[in-house]
């Protein structure tokens, strides 16, 4: 098995005291999931409980990545917030569908819609 490096880019944009948009790009897998988890936990600890994940640049996600989404969803909801998924590509959307996550976190087509949902969730 050739060595390969997983790349994950996470950009955090703080919208307001309660909302952050995390743009996730690259590959979200066993190696990189911890990093996204760290970013999400950081935002939650700062009181930003409404977390919008912009998945438009995400190419790949495995069960570990999915696990992070589920865990963060629980934490956000426990804190009175929520986790919003926006603009997954078709492959990622398929994964979300297969795993049934779409029934729990219906993904939004665009970030703006996710943000609107986040505002409505106040």
């Amino acid at each position, binding site marked *: *098995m050739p060595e390969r490096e997983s790349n994950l880019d996470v950009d955090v944009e703080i919208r307001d005291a309660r909302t952050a948009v995390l743009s996730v790009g690259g590959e979200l897998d066993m190696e990189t999931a911890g990093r996204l988890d760290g970013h999400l936990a950081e935002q939650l600890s700062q009181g930003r409980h409404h977390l919008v994940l912009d998945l438009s640049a995400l190419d790949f996600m495995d069960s570990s990545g*999915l*696990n992070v989404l*589920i865990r963060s969803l629980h934490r956000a909801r426990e804190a009175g917030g929520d986790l919003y998924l926006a603009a997954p590509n078709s492959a990622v959307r398929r994964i979300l569908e*297969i*795993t049934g996550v779409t029934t*729990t976190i219906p993904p939004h087509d665009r970030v703006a819609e996710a943000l609107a949902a986040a505002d409505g969730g106040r």
Partner: protein
Amino acid sequence: MSGPRFRDGDPPAGLPRDGVLPTPETPAGVTGLPPADSERPPTRDDCADGRLAATVERLRGEVRAAHAAAEGRALIELAKGVLVERLGCGPAQAARQLAELADRAGLSRLELAAEIINQAARDRVAEVAGEFVRTTIGESGTAGPADSVAVRLRTAESAALGAGDTQAVADSLLAHALEPLGAVAVAIWTTGQDASLSLRGHAGFGADEAARWHYVPPGVTTAAREALTGRRTVWYPSLAAAGIPSIGRARHPDGGRVVVPAGTGGRIHGVLEICWARPLDPQPQAVERQIEALAELCAHTLEALPEQAAPAHSLVPVGDGSPELAELSDGLYDPALVLTPHLDEAGRLADFRIRHANAHFQDPAGRPRGAVDGALLLEAYPATAGESELFERIERVYATGEPFRARRTRLTALVDQVPLTSLADISISRHGGSVLLIWRVEDESARVASLLQHAQRLGRVGAFEEDALTGEITWHGQLFELFGRRPTEAPVSLRDLAGHAHPDDHGTIRHFLQTVLHQRQVGSAAFRMLRRDGVTRHIRVTAEPALGVDGDLETVRGAYQDISSQHWTEVALTATRDQLAATEEAAEERNRLTLQLQHAIMPPVKPPLDAPALDVAVRYRPAETESLVGGDWYDAVVLPSKKVLLCVGDVAGHGVEAATGMVVLRNALRGLAVTGAGPGQLLSWLNSVAHHLTAHVTATAVCGIFDPGTRTLRWARAGHLPPVLVRGNEAADMPLLRGLLLGALAEAEYEEAELRLEPDDIVLMYTDGLVERRDTPVQDSVAQLLAVAQLPSDSLEQRLDQMLARSKSDTDDDTCVVGVQVF
């Protein structure tokens, strides 16, 4: 004023106010007789050296003769000389004038001569004599003793001046000036360049005692030395009581002593020591002054001695500097100043003139050298007189000749009126009439050197140097301590090093010596040093050979470093590494365990399942990377109801935790399945198990219950890829029933579907290890899988192998495939 004034404000008895002698105010014949009411007595430089000494010189022959016949005659001759000069007459006329005046004044010619000289000289002797007269007149009302004092002193002086050597001066002093004071002996010491004392003249001690005391080395404390170093007159009521040795103590142990520094212009040329036979009572101030005057007299004599370098004590020191000293100072690598004394009008030391600032001189205030060169010390550096006491030290060195050296002395310089303090090593020494002041400011490089020393100490490094020719070894710093040797012991040579090392390290040292001494290359070795005190130190030695021009080995330089602490650090590191390796082994062990667990629970090839109307085949392929062996599972078991439970699952993550989760979920499902509940219900329960019983575990699974009686398959899925149905030559994935992955929510419901199977239908359940690709959407991968799954094959087993073989997965996940075929 019409007559001479012999003493200030005190007309002498018997001398006419309207004498023949011209008054200072009289223009005629006045060629320099100082005004009687001038504020200060004129210095000897003006009078004694100028005219009096010239006269003395002229009359020297006569004075010698007079000395033989009558000491007083010299005085008379002197007085005659004065008159000759003042009156512009010849000696005979002067003699007549003297006799005439003496008669008129009712004095002896000798007394008058002393008076005349006092008047002319206006020096210390005159002062003392005058004072003595006033005191005694006040006490007794007679002038006799006073006059005799003047005569005595002048006699002594003239004898001293006439004397060819200091010994004669001593004789004269004792005879004329000191015996009347009750003294029995006198010694005149001169100070050497090194602050030693030499006996230059003595009277009353005896030749043997004088021979014993001819030289007192520097640093030996005697009565005379006390006067020199203290720069003051010291009175000893009893020498024995003072417990201080000096010449003649054996003969007059209880006798009183006085020692007086004899100096001119701030420089002490010698010490006058006067000895009494009996203990000495406190003396009247007049006597003290008289003795100090005698000391001054001595000083002039000593100063004039040919052995003594002529000091520069003149008010006009131009040309008397010390070019040799300036030359010398320019050769020094430290800043230096050549100073010469600067006297005030009274002949007292007032300051030092900076005669030369050497090549390395740098003014702390940043002024050009020219601004300092030639200036007065106190004017250029007012701060020297302040707290640093530098001026006082220079003064003292100049006076005593005793050099002063001190390290890290605080120096203050005024820079723009701001006092700047620096630490400096100071050296002050007297050379002839000059003082050499050298200082070395503790600068950066010195500090770096000092830092280096500390660094060596802290680093436990000690340098060495070994001369290959002479075998001479120099050890620096703490090598003795490093080797556990006393500094008085000989250093250990490189060749003997093995004798101080652990036998196991002898080879290392031999190799090191071979490198350095024979191959002549830089060498280094680490060895265990066995010290005599039983301590073992780990030492690293590094050395380099220094070769001469002919290529011969000249010197070996290097350093030893105590690396014991580093050694133990390394030992600790090694231990950590070992532990790490052990951890790695443990990890491998864990991975093996995981795999064994997997295999134990799910043999890669399932033994034939005793299920009616159903052929079951399974394949489990663990991840190639052992640590990635994870949580895939399958199950195929005949339930008590004779229905068959078929299941494939995948716990997120890898390793022991995933495998443990897998075991929990698999066994839980088996147990739950016994209840006869449908697959939707089973997954709902399994979700609760995953959510509540295992921490942070999510899993996906597909669960089917096959009823052989009806050939129906009821199934549900939890976030898992739906099964594939191969019917005939076509493969299709089953619908994506609603069902969240396990453990995501506390409660979840799972959609169920039922499929009636036909004979030869094949149902495939698999984990995503079979299809997952990073560069391909899962739907595409599934499509490819379907294409492979529908390929014809001889058996179910072969079909599964075919699917595994053609798997395009690139995630090195473990992979599970369960296939069932109905017949």
